[in-house]
């Protein structure tokens, strides 16, 4: 575990938002290390600070306390080494599917022929063939989110930060995308930090599942998921594997505890911090 520099290191991170009624504590102290090639998933109750942590790693939120490193260098802002799939829909309404997905390649100055090849492959991958020249408002919510995922993949970043990317995608497409994501990350050795509300999704995708407490969140548990067949992961063998199902139940229990506590303390967004 030691020796090599961590891809991502979060040390003593804590964040407060300034609001009209004073500072709102979004997270408790968080320490986190992600190694190169690791796929880390994060689950936790709504409003516990997951997006805050992700945006801090992306470089959009300056931590109130603590430091964040990428490849051993302090994060001072966003960069193309850390691609982000945002929780909100973030593709550009004025670009067609093709031009949205190719945007990162255009910025990087990739040759048009090469760019078109990459874009065409990704359009096939996310099942959008035939929609290349449509504008986002002509697509369904799930299709738009697939464009967002493809756009980030096309830019080929070192680290991919994903904030509930498949939440709006239909169940069938989601299964395919999850399998493809697992395969793609295993073969390209990408480092992924993936936020989700789906316990099964977290266990299926993650090498490591982190569970956060309610707001102000901290990481209360970390469950390693053993991989027998790294590349070839599929939902059939996942659901048939008793060990995986046991891990899912364990994670679900940990998440449930927070759900119960949240209900007692009010909503996730309640101003009174539960001690």
């Amino acid at each position, binding site marked *: 575990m030691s020796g090599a520099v961590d891809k991502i290191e979060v040390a003593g991170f804590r964040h407060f938002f300034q609001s009209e009624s004073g500072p709102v504590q979004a997270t408790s102290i968080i320490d986190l290390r992600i190694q190169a090639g690791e796929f880390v998933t994060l689950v936790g109750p709504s409003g516990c600070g997951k997006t805050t942590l992700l945006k801090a790693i*992306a470089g*959009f939120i300056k931590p109130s306390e603590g430091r964040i490193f990428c490849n051993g260098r302090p994060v001072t*802002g*966003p*960069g*193309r080494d*850390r*691609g*982000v799939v*945002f929780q*909100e829909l*973030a*593709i*550009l*309404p*004025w*670009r067609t599917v093709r031009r949205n997905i190719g*945007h*990162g390649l255009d*910025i*990087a100055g990739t040759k048009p022929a090469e760019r078109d090849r990459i874009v065409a492959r990704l359009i096939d991958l996310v099942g959008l063939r035939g929609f290349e020249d449509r*504008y*986002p*408002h*002509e697509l369904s919510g799930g299709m738009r989110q697939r464009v*967002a995922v493809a*756009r*980030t993949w096309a*830019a080929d*970043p070192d680290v991919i930060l994903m904030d509930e990317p498949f939440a709006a995608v239909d169940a069938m497409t989601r299964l395919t995308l999850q399998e493809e994501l697992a395969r793609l990350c295993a073969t390209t050795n990408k480092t992924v930090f993936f936020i989700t509300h789906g316990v099964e999704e977290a266990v299926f995708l993650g090498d490591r599942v982190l569970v956060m407490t309610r707001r102000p969140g901290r990481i209360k548990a970390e469950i390693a998921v053993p991989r027998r067949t790294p590349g070839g992961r599929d939902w059939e063998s996942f659901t048939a594997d008793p060990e995986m199902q046991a891990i899912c139940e364990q994670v679900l229990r940990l998440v449930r505890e927070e759900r119960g506590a949240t209900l007692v303390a009010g909503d996730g967004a309640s101003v009174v911090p539960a001690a």
Partner: protein
Amino acid sequence: MTDTPRTPARARLGRLVWRLLPFSPILIFGAAWSIYWNVAHPPLAVMPSIANVVGAVIELAQSGSLLTDILASLWRLGLGALLGIAMGVAAGFVTGLNKPLATFLNPLLVFFNAISGIVWLPLMIGWVGIGTGLAVFLIWNSVFFIVFQNTVLGVQLVPEVLEQSVRTLGAGRWETIRSVTFPGALPYILNGVRSGLGFGWRALIAAELVGATTGLGQMIFRAADFSRTDIIVAGCLIIGMIAMAMDRWLLLPIERRTVQRWGMVARSEGGRPG
């Protein structure tokens, strides 16, 4: 899109009705005018008939003065509006992207907005004299502030997450402005241009009434001296029709190709584009 299948002939008829619909208020207005005129028979110094107005247009057109006046007005309007739009968009971007500057400029804007328009006229006559400069300044003054304010608003309302997403693709500040901020603010900019042109016309006519020797405003002003209401009404109609034509053949096509195509505003016509 429609639930009942329509025959091509009926669809064509439907499109034709859509095309002509904007003109129906004009037809109703013209009919009401004719009826009133034929009943009341007011003297020409009070109100012309449609025939009088058409006659005036033909008379002015034949003498050649109508074309001269239209071109003079269009030249002033074009120059003032182009300057106003270009400077309004540029200044609006700088201000919209810079919060402290926007806060600093806001009271000044409220101040100048209140005295924009023809209030400047007496001062400006003293400064630049009577002529093209005066009209161009007054038009610029109307167009600039509206385009500026709309651009600032549009730039500020572009969702931050769109800019952030493009920056994670490696975009620098310039690329972010070009590919996100500008198209994102375009609906507001176009809206500003549309209202700006309307106010520009008013400023133009006001400036020409007192500060020009040619132009549609001056044509109306001269006609007033002789109580030629037929020429006055003809002038008003020509101004209105040029403004409508500019909107339909200049602004609408831009909107149709950009913000409407991107689904950022409702289409102005029902159904599919013509």
